[in-house]
C-alpha cells in the first residue's frame, strides 16, 4: 500500500465508527423527522403503505391555528424558563461566582461551591418526583409551612401551576451558571488584576472595569445556554407535573412527547413540533457562531 493510501485508510478506520453511529442515531433521524412532518404518517408501516402521502405544511398550520392554542402555551412556558435563567440564575450565578472567585471570603469556598452546584448533578427525574411531594400535595413541606400561618389550609392547585416548576428550575440550575462564570473568571489574566491593584484600584473598580467588560461574551453564551437548556427540559416536568393540570405546565418537548406517545398518537403534529425545536436549535447555532466571530474580531 502506498503511504497516501495507508494514510487515507487510517483516516477512515479512525473516523468511520463515530461518523456512522452519529449519522444513524442523530443526523438521519433529524432529517427523517422533518420529512415525516410533511406527511400524514401516523404509525404502522412507512414504506409501501398506500395511505401515506405528503400533506405539505398542513400539520404546521394546524399546530399554529388550533383553537386551544397548545403550541403557544408550551412555547410560552419555554420562554418563562429562559426568563428564569436570564433574570434569576444568570445574575445569581454571577454574584456567587464573583464572591467565590475573587476570594472575598477566606473559609469554605470549596465547600460552598460543591454544595451550591450539587442539585445540578442529580437526575432530573428524581428531582421532579421529590419536589412533587415537597410542594405539590396536601402532605407536602410547602403545606406544612402554610399551615403554620393558617392551620386550616387545604392544598389547592395554584392558579399559575408553572410557578412551582420555575422555582425548581431555578433551584436546579443556579449552580450550573455559577460554575460557568467561575470557569471564565479564572481565565482572566491575573497580571491585569495585579497591575490594577498596584495602581490603587479598589475591588469595586476591578469589578466594573476589568471583570464585567470581559464577561459580555460570556453573558451572551449563557443566554444561548438558557434557550437550549429550556428546549432540553423534559424529565423534570414530566416527573413533577407530567405537563398538567390540563397541559398548563407543558413545554415544547412535553407537548411533543404527549402528541406522539401519550394516548392517541398524532405523529404529524409531534413531528411538526420537533421540527420547530430543530429550527430554534439551528438559529441558536448560527447566532453562537456569529457572536463568537464578533468577539474574536473585537479581541484582535
Amino acid at each position: 500500500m502506498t503511504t497516501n493510501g495507508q494514510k487515507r485508510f487510517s483516516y477512515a478506520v479512525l473516523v468511520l465508527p463515530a461518523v456512522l453511529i452519529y449519522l444513524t442515531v442523530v443526523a438521519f433521524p433529524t432529517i427523517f423527522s422533518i420529512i415525516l412532518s410533511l406527511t400524514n404518517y401516523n404509525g404502522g408501516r412507512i414504506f409501501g403503505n398506500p395511505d401515506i402521502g405528503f400533506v405539505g405544511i398542513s400539520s404546521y398550520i394546524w399546530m399554529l391555528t388550533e383553537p386551544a392554542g397548545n403550541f403557544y402555551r408550551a412555547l410560552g412556558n419555554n420562554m418563562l424558563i429562559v426568563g428564569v435563567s436570564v433574570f434569576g440564575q444568570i445574575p445569581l450565578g454571577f454574584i456567587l461566582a464573583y464572591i467565590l472567585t475573587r476570594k472575598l471570603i477566606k473559609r469554605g469556598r470549596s465547600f460552598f461551591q460543591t454544595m451550591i452546584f450539587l442539585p445540578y448533578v442529580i437526575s432530573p427525574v428524581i428531582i421532579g418526583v421529590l419536589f412533587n411531594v415537597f410542594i405539590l400535595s396536601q402532605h407536602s413541606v410547602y403545606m406544612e409551612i402554610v399551615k403554620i400561618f393558617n392551620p386550616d389550609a387545604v392544598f389547592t392547585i395554584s392558579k399559575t401551576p408553572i410557578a412551582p416548576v420555575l422555582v425548581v428550575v431555578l433551584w436546579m440550575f443556579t449552580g450550573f451558571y455559577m460554575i460557568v462564570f467561575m470557569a471564565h473568571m479564572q481565565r482572566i489574566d491575573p497580571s491585569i488584576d495585579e497591575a490594577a491593584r498596584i495602581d490603587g484600584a479598589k475591588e469595586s473598580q476591578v469589578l466594573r472595569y476589568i471583570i464585567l467588560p470581559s464577561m459580555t461574551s460570556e453573558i451572551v453564551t449563557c443566554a444561548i445556554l438558557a434557550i437550549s437548556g429550556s428546549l432540553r427540559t423534559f424529565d423534570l416536568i414530566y416527573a413533577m407535573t407530567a405537563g398538567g393540570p390540563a397541559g398548563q405546565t407543558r413545554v415544547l418537548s412535553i407537548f411533543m412527547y404527549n402528541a406522539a406517545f401519550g394516548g392517541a398518537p398524532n405523529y404529524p403534529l409531534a413531528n411538526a413540533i420537533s421540527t420547530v425545536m430543530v429550527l430554534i436549535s439551528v438559529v441558536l447555532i448560527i447566532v453562537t457562531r456569529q457572536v463568537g466571530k464578533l468577539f474574536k474580531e473585537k479581541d484582535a
Partner: protein
Amino acid sequence: MGEIRKNSAVLTIILKVLLYFILIFFTVMAIYPIIWLFIQSFKTNQDYMLSNKLAPPSTWFVGNYQFVWIQVKFYNFFINSVIYATITTVIVVLLSNMAGFAFAKFNYKITKLLHGLFIVGILLTLQSILIPLFLMINAAGLFNTRLGILIPYVGLGLPMGVYLATDFVRNIPDELIESARIDGASYLNIFRSIIFPMCAPVSVTLAIVSFTGTWNEFILMNLLTAGDTLKSVPAAVGRFAGNLGSNYGRLFVSLSISLIPILIFYFIFRKQITKGVAAGAVKG
C-alpha cells in the same frame, strides 16, 4: 483618622458577614430538600402522614429500605445502570479520541464537514429526534433490548466527545507524530501508543460527563424499554413514583437510594465534574 479607620473596619466585618450569609443561604437552599428526603425516608407511611412534615421521625424505621431493596429488587436497576453507563462511556471515549485524532491531525477537506456535523449535534435536542429514533429501533427489532439502548446512548454522547477530543489533540505537537512516522510507525499504532495515552486528561473529563449523563438519562430508557428487567435507576424511579406514591416512606427510600451513588460519585470527582461541565458549556 482613627475614627475613619475604625468605621471601615466595621464596614469590612459587616460586608464579610453579609457575604457569608448569602453563601450559607444558597447552600442551605440547595441541600435542604435532599437532607429532608433522607430523614423522611426513615418514617413509616403512617408516621409521615400524621406527623409534622418538617420533623424527624419519632422512631427511625428501616423497614422501607428492606422492602425497596429486597422485595422490589431495586439492586437490579443499579446493575442495569452500571452496565449502560460503563459500556457507553468506554465506547464514547474510545471513538471520540479516534475521531478527534483524525480530525485534528489529518488534513483532509472532508474533515471540516464531518467535524461540523458533530458540532451541530451538541446543541440539537434529543426530544426532536425521538419519534424517528423510536420507529427505527422498532424497525430494527431492537425494541426492549440492551443494544437498542446502547447505540443511541453512544450516538448522543459523541458530539461533545468529538468536540472535546479534537480540541485536545490539536494542542499535541505535530513533531511527535512526524518523528514516529519516520521511525516507521503506522497511524493506527501512533494512535494506540502515543495519542490515546496522551489524551488521558480529556478522556477522564469526557468519561465523567458521559457516565453521569448516561446514569441520569430517562426519556429514551422510558420509551425504548418495556417492563422492568432492562430499566435503569431513573426509569425505575419514574415508574415506581406512581406505584409507591401511595406509600410515602417507600417512595422516599427509592429516591434516597437512587441518590446515594451519584452523590458519592460527585463528592469523589467534583473537581473533574465541574471542569467537564464548564468545558462543555464554554464551547461557543
